[in-house]
């Protein structure tokens, strides 16, 4: 009796998934492999050559740099906050992180254009050369603004799980700080770290509005901007299905990331079981 009842309980969720993921995915696949009703691989080929390929590489580069640097910075910040004795600091940083991790899109772009843009307040004070913000590193910098807080939120609970006793026990056994981190700290943190990196990569990879509002697409081609171009271009006609193919490419890249992440995750959590 339990089995069918349990299955029934999950039915609404499954139906929901079928609708919100299944139908768009089916439409995406159907569109990506057809052109004017004819089956073709031309869309896919076009999505992987010329400017589209440059954009795909650009997106992966930006996302990878953001994910790795965001993970490092976020972890250190979280560690500093968690180990500080000030409850007020901890509360303030974690609350701020919760807000800033969701601070994206047009407001974020405006924030940085007003601060570090060509006529920004701070760029004037620092004497930054015009266009500094509108570059690869400028975009990475802007993305880090929501990525670091996101990493703090992921790492803080994991760092809380590092009990002081472990460190004391290690010290009693003659371990140095390096030994402790190498053999105790990092292995415990690895699952959270990996998860955080993947999360950051995904957030940066899928980001659109910030880059679009900054107008960074001219110097930093991104695949999300290419999709928007293909859908609403004044220059290119009939690129809708190439946009679908580009989306499919993005899904494949996300799949590849997961294919690397999942075995690593499994290995890193094996000793926990």
């Amino acid at each position, binding site marked *: 009796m339990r089995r069918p009842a349990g299955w029934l309980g999950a039915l609404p969720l499954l139906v929901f998934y079928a609708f919100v993921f299944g139908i768009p995915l089916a439409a995406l696949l159907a569109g990506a492999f057809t052109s004017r009703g004819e089956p073709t691989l031309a869309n896919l080929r076009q999505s992987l050559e010329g400017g589209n390929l440059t954009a795909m590489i650009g997106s992966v580069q930006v996302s990878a740099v953001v994910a790795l640097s965001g993970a490092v910075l976020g972890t250190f910040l979280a560690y500093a906050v968690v180990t500080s004795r000030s409850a007020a600091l901890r509360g303030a940083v974690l609350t701020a992180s919760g807000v800033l991790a969701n601070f994206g899109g047009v407001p974020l772009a405006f924030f940085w254009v007003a601060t570090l843009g060509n006529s920004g307040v701070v760029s004037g004070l620092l004497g930054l050369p*015009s266009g500094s913000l509108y570059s690869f590193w400028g975009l990475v910098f802007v993305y880090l603004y929501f990525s670091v807080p996101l990493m703090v939120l992921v790492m803080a609970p994991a760092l809380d799980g590092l009990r002081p006793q472990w460190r004391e026990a290690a010290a009693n056994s003659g371990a140095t700080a390096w030994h402790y981190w190498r053999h105790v700290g990092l292995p415990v943190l690895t699952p959270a770290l990996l998860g955080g990196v993947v999360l950051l990569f995904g957030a940066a990879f899928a980001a659109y509005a910030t880059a679009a509002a900054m107008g960074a697409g001219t110097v930093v081609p991104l695949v999300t901007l290419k999709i928007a171009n293909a859908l609403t271009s004044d220059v290119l006609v009939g690129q809708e299905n190439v946009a679908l193919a580009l989306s499919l490419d993005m899904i494949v890249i996300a799949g590849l990331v997961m294919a690397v992440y999942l075995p690593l995750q499994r290995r890193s959590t094996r000793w926990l079981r």
Partner: protein
Amino acid sequence: MFTPRARTAGAIAALTVITAACGAAPGTQGTTAEGGVDARTATSAADFGGFDALVEAAKKEGRLHVIALPPDWANYGEIIKTFESTYGITIESEDPDASSADEINAVKTRKGQDRAPDVLDLGQSFALSGAAEGLFAPYKVQAFDKIPEGQKEPTGLWVNDYGGYISIGCDANKINPCPTSFADLLRPGYKGKVALNGNPTKAGAAFAGVYAAAIAEGGSFDDIQPGIDFFKKLKDVGNFNPVETTPATIEKGETPISIDWDYINAAYAPQLAPKGLDWQVNVPTDGKYFQMYAQAINKDAPHPAAARLWMEFLYSPEGQNLYLKGFARPVLMPVMQEDGTIDETAAAALPEVEGEPAFPTTEQVDAAKEKLVSGWDAAISG
């Protein structure tokens, strides 16, 4: 129509899908004129039994749906108001910042619905592809014969309405002297200041900017590569500014030099003068590139008679002069200069250009686009 400002593109696309999905389709009410003519198949005012009968039929419909007509673009704000007050027809202007692709999408996804756009103002390539897909209704305005060959589809599926030259706008209060040619733009004084109106792989005006640069740099309609190379050079010397121009970026000083259509740049000047900017417009002496937009009627227009009246209005001397007042060069301008119906004051306010405009063929434009799309990112990114 053009995209630099269509930051909301994603939202619009989503919206179109949603509205298409849940919009009930009440169908188009067949509008029949006095003489029993179906307005949807009328190909000229004569089909209605004369212009007055067309006005009558349009008034009966009472409404007109337009899309992608920004009030500050080619004077569309005043054009819409004048049309409304002249004929007592309410214009519902949807999504003024939409692109040509958005317009075509709206026609397709809202086929048969009451909220589909009636008339379209399209980039040339979209007019051609839309006509090939059978999306437009053929209609010959009264002035059809006066419109030069090549500026209209022979059966009237689309007709060019207005156009302009690529120009260099510049805030003379900040920049001295203002550049008057593409060669000037490479000068060391313009570090990080030279912007385009959008990304040339997306925005029509920016694409035209690269095409014009190609002509300046020894290329031709058949060869856009020198234009791409020019912008690479511009970037290498540090003058290229990747910010996409909007009135806001000009006002903030983010884009003190902007390559854009002359009618857009010229229209900025009076707007920006009270804000302390001396916005000067020069059509580059070494790279003249002229292009027109085209007007078409949606084949399934929910207000077919009003749509046809809108066309008649736009190609009347009044409508054409309204474009001119917005610094756009109307298609009938040469004819109107001859028969004296032109608004002389507005014509004199246009940025000066010497010589007659030349037009690339569709094949040349298509080839140039292909070249640009494959080469632009590699040249400029990084």
